[in-house]
Structures are given as structure tokens and as C-alpha cells.
């Protein structure tokens, strides 16, 4: 029972981080109808950004996170303005292709600049943990979980309460109508994609704290972000966090009760089943 509790907590903590990963992808997908195959690469780049902030500039990771997010926001903003906006009205598949190309570029730039060495962000408190009801909860994981949930809540509030957030939601529903109401689509698109990149960057930074970064972590993470975003309903922040939790717990349980090699079967099997079993809910979003 002890072990079950520990695994459950591990799953929840991981799930929060997963949710954060899904957040950025779901936002961009739901609002801009762009399926960002470079999402995992953005996570990876965010991880490196925080890593270098910590190792070169000595900034505490949790404090450096906003800086890393800002850098990623700028990157995302530029990507949308200079590249994605050029093809947004052509076939949806083209955004898939473009982001795939970007992914290739990012991964190999990272490989060239940072080498394939494993990097971890290891602040002094990383090894410590607290014990709650007999379950060990590492500070780093707990912090990451907290930040993830915080960001999700922030995103939800921004989308719901602020003018920009409303503009984003209007654009998601009906671009033409939004234009008529004075929304500047280019700016909103760029802000949205920038936000998605910032969230990915945050996830990457946190990932660097609780795990290791290489140029290649993006591939699986993009795929997982798909799953999580779909489970959560794309641009619904609270739902996506929920989706992340589901995946995190499912993976943790699978690792405990089945062979760890089954984790992929679990996450993707879950995805396929969800898609097949509840098509009606999702078809409307297509």
C-alpha cells in the first residue's frame, strides 16, 4: 500500500509537468489550428535556456524560469510573425510540415551547439525531499508540480479575464468575426504562439530540473503533448492539466504493475481508445 501511494504521488507530480507540456500545444492547436510538431523542440530549447541561466549566470532555476519563458516567448513570437503567418491560410498539413522542418532545424542546431551530452539542472536543494504520510516527495518535483499548476491557472485567468485573452478566444472561434471587432489577427496569432512557446519553455526548464536534457528529448515529448492536449480538450487549460495527470498516473501505474516497456503501449493505447470511443465530442473541434 505504501508503494502504491508513492507511485501514485510520483504519477501526480509527473502528471502536473505533463499537463504543462500539453498546455502550450493545446493552446496553439485550439486557437491557431496549428499542430506544432516542433513543440518538443521548444521544450528542449527552454530546458537549455534555463540550464545555461543556471550554470553560466548562477540564477536559481525557479527564479530564472520567467526569464527563460520570456526568451522562448520572443522566439515563438518571431517564428509566428516571420514564418507561420505566411502559410497559415493554406492546407493545415502545411503547418505540420513547416513545424516538422523547424523541429529538424532546432534539434540539429542544439546538437551542434550544445552537443549530445546529458545536462541536468541541479540546484543545491534538488536532492532534498519531504515526507508526507510516509510518502517521499522530492522538493524539485514538488516545485515543478506547483509551477505547472500555477501556470495553468494563470493561463486560464488570462484567457478568461483579460482583454487579450478574450481576443485570443474570439480568434479561436471565428477569425473573421474577431477581425470585425477590431482584433489584430497577426498580433494575436504571434502572441498566442509566443505564449505556447513560453509554456513549452517552462516545461522544458522544469524537465531539466527533475530529469535530464539532451537535444533529442523533444521527439517523445511532442507525441506525449499531443495525447495530453487531446485528452484535455486542446485550449482548456484546466482540462489539459487533468489530461496530464491522467497520463502521468497511468504511466506510473503501468511502470509499477507491468513492464516499463509497456509505458508506450499505455500512453498511445489510451490515446487511440479515447479518440475512438468519444469521437462525437472531438469531431466538433476538428
Amino acid at each position, binding site marked *: 500500500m505504501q508503494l502504491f501511494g508513492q507511485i501514485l504521488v510520483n504519477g501526480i507530480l509527473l502528471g502536473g509537468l505533463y499537463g504543462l507540456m500539453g498546455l502550450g500545444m493545446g493552446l496553439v492547436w485550439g486557437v491557431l489550428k496549428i*499542430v506544432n510538431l516542433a513543440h518538443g523542440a521548444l521544450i528542449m530549447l527552454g530546458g537549455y535556456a534555463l540550464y545555461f541561466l543556471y550554470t553560466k549566470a548562477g540564477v536559481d532555476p525557479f527564479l530564472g524560469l520567467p526569464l527563460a519563458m520570456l526568451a522562448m516567448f520572443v522566439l515563438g513570437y518571431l517564428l509566428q510573425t516571420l514564418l507561420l503567418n505566411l502559410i497559415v491560410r493554406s492546407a493545415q498539413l502545411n503547418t505540420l510540415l513547416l513545424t516538422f522542418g523547424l523541429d529538424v532545424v532546432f534539434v540539429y542546431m542544439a546538437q551542434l551547439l550544445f552537443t549530445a551530452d546529458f545536462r541536468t539542472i541541479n540546484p543545491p536543494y534538488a536532492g532534498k525531499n519531504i515526507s508526507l504520510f510516509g510518502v517521499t516527495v522530492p522538493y524539485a518535483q514538488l516545485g515543478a508540480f506547483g509551477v505547472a499548476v500555477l501556470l495553468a491557472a494563470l493561463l486560464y485567468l488570462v484567457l478568461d479575464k483579460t482583454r487579450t485573452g478574450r481576443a485570443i478566444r474570439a480568434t479561436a472561434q471565428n477569425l473573421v468575426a474577431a477581425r470585425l471587432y477590431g482584433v489584430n489577427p497577426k498580433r494575436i496569432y504571434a502572441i498566442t504562439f509566443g505564449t505556447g512557446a513560453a509554456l513549452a519553455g517552462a516545461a522544458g526548464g522544469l524537465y531539466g530540473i527533475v530529469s535530464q536534457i539532451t537535444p533529442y528529448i523533444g521527439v517523445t515529448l511532442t507525441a506525449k503533448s*499531443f495525447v495530453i492536449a487531446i485528452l484535455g480538450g486542446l485550449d482548456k487549460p484546466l482540462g489539459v492539466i487533468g489530461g496530464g495527470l491522467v497520463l502521468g498516473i497511468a504511466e506510473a501505474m503501468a511502470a509499477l504493475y507491468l513492464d516499463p516497456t509497456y509505458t508506450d*503501449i499505455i500512453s*498511445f493505447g489510451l490515446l*487511440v481508445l479515447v479518440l*475512438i470511443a468519444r469521437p462525437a465530442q472531438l*469531431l466538433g473541434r476538428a
Partner: protein
Amino acid sequence: MNRFRWLVLPVAAGALAAVPWVTSDTIVQYGINALLVATLAQSWNIIGGFSGYPSFGNSVFYGLGTYGTAIAMAQLHWSFGSGLVFGAVLGVACALLFGIPILRLRGPYFAIATLGLAAVMSAIIATVEIAGKNIGLILPLFRGDTLFYELSLILLVAATATVAWIARSRFGVGLVAIREDEDAAQVMGINTTMYKVAALTVAAFFSALAGGIHAYWITFIDPASAFDPSLNVRMVIMTLFGGPGTVLGPVLGAFVLSAVSEVLASQATGVASLFYGIVIVAAVVFMPKGLLDVVQGFRESRWRYFTDNIRRYRL
């Protein structure tokens, strides 16, 4: 140009067939890879290009074809021919079994579901005893790249001929109608479910055969290489680059991109892929409708074709 269109395929095929006798072994090997991946692109073209259902998991059929042939030859000691048939049967069965539920999904949801299917199948095979689990299988050795080259060429020609037939047939019109507006297509009398499943099955058939040929050629297979996920993106990109929904587009795209990739790979490892990525990005921005459309569009409006595209599709 139109009158001679019929000569293009046989002449090109003939020229390609002669390649092993006039070039080096390396080129023949590159050729086999290029021909097989072109077959994959052409297969994807049927479900993605014509029907508008962008599968990101066609590698599952390739992988099943690979494993079917490998199991048949390495474990059951069947002949190559029987092995290929077995692989094709596995691929087709998968398309029929999973096609119906998954083809109910649209757009990116369909794409993700196929991606999930490929990942699940790959993971499952890695646990199956007779498939050699994670270690893989070793097939009987056959020396003779030329034979594999010609076989791959025949397969590509068969796939392209099939697509050519589809493009002019009633079946093809139905697929295109489904792509353009599925609801309208249904209301006009097209059994969309059957058509989509048929398209997926044909794609699965050729993909599985490609996998089978590849398996016997390289002699050793394992889940990672058989269900290689990068194949999916490559076949999609090659088709989109060359021109989806056309007959020769995927072949063109596959040959061009394979060549680019090979040439760059011989320079430096990382840099090659970097350029590959940049080429893709540039191609999508300037040629969103594929290479074949460029050829036609260039004839009409010269360099303005590229800027026109941007103007039409920008936000």
C-alpha cells in the same frame, strides 16, 4: 506534352531498370532505399493525398510487412514469396481491422490516432516471442542487390500504376470528393466508409510489400528499425513536397528529397539534417502545393508564382 504523357512511365521505368548495370554498388543501394521510400510515399498519397486523410502511422503497415516476411522466413522457413504474401496479409488485416474505427475521425485526430496505432503496434511486437521481442530477427542471407533493386522498382511501378488508375477512375473521383467535402460526398451517394477503408487497405498493401522487400534485403530487423517513426514524416513530406493527389508527385518528391538527403549526409552529419530542415521550411513557404504545381505555375507566372503563394496564404 499530353500526347506523350503515356510514354513517361515506361521510359522512366526502363531507364531506372538499367541503373544497376551502369553504376556502382553504392548507387544501387541508395536506389533501393529511394525506390522503397518512394513506394511508401505513393501509398500515403492514396489515403493522404487523394482522400485527404493524413495518416501519420503508415509505418505500421511497413513494419507489419517487415515482420511478417521476417517471421515467415526466419522462424517458419518459408520462401521469400510466401513471406511477402504473409507480410502483405498482416498489413491488409491491420488496415481492415483498425481502419473502420479510426477512419471515423477527421483531420489531426485521425493523424494522431494513426500515430498512436503505429506506436502501440511497435511496442506490442517488441513483446512477442516469435517476433524475437526486442532483439529482432535475422533472415536468411541473399546476396544480390540487383535483384532487390529490380524488385523495388517493380513495386514502385505497380504502386504508381495503381495510383494512375485511381486518378482516372470512379473510385478516385469518390476519394477526391471525400477529401473536398465528406458530408456532401455522402449525400451524393458515396459510401464514404467503404471508400476510405479501401484506400487505406491499398496503401497498406504496398507499404507492407515494401517492408517485406526491405527486410530480406538488410537481413536483420528489430522493432525500432521496422517501425521507424521517422518513416512517417518522411513519406508525408515527400508526397507533400512533390504534390499530393497527383500521380508522379510523390515519386518526384521522394527522389529529390532522398537525393538531397544523401548528398548532404556525405558532407557532415549534423549539418546535413540542418539543411534538410531548412529546405523543408523554405519549400512549404514558397511551394505550398508541391513541386509539380511549381512546374505548372512557373510556366504560367514565372517568379511571381512564389510571391503569389505567400500573398494568397498569409494571414
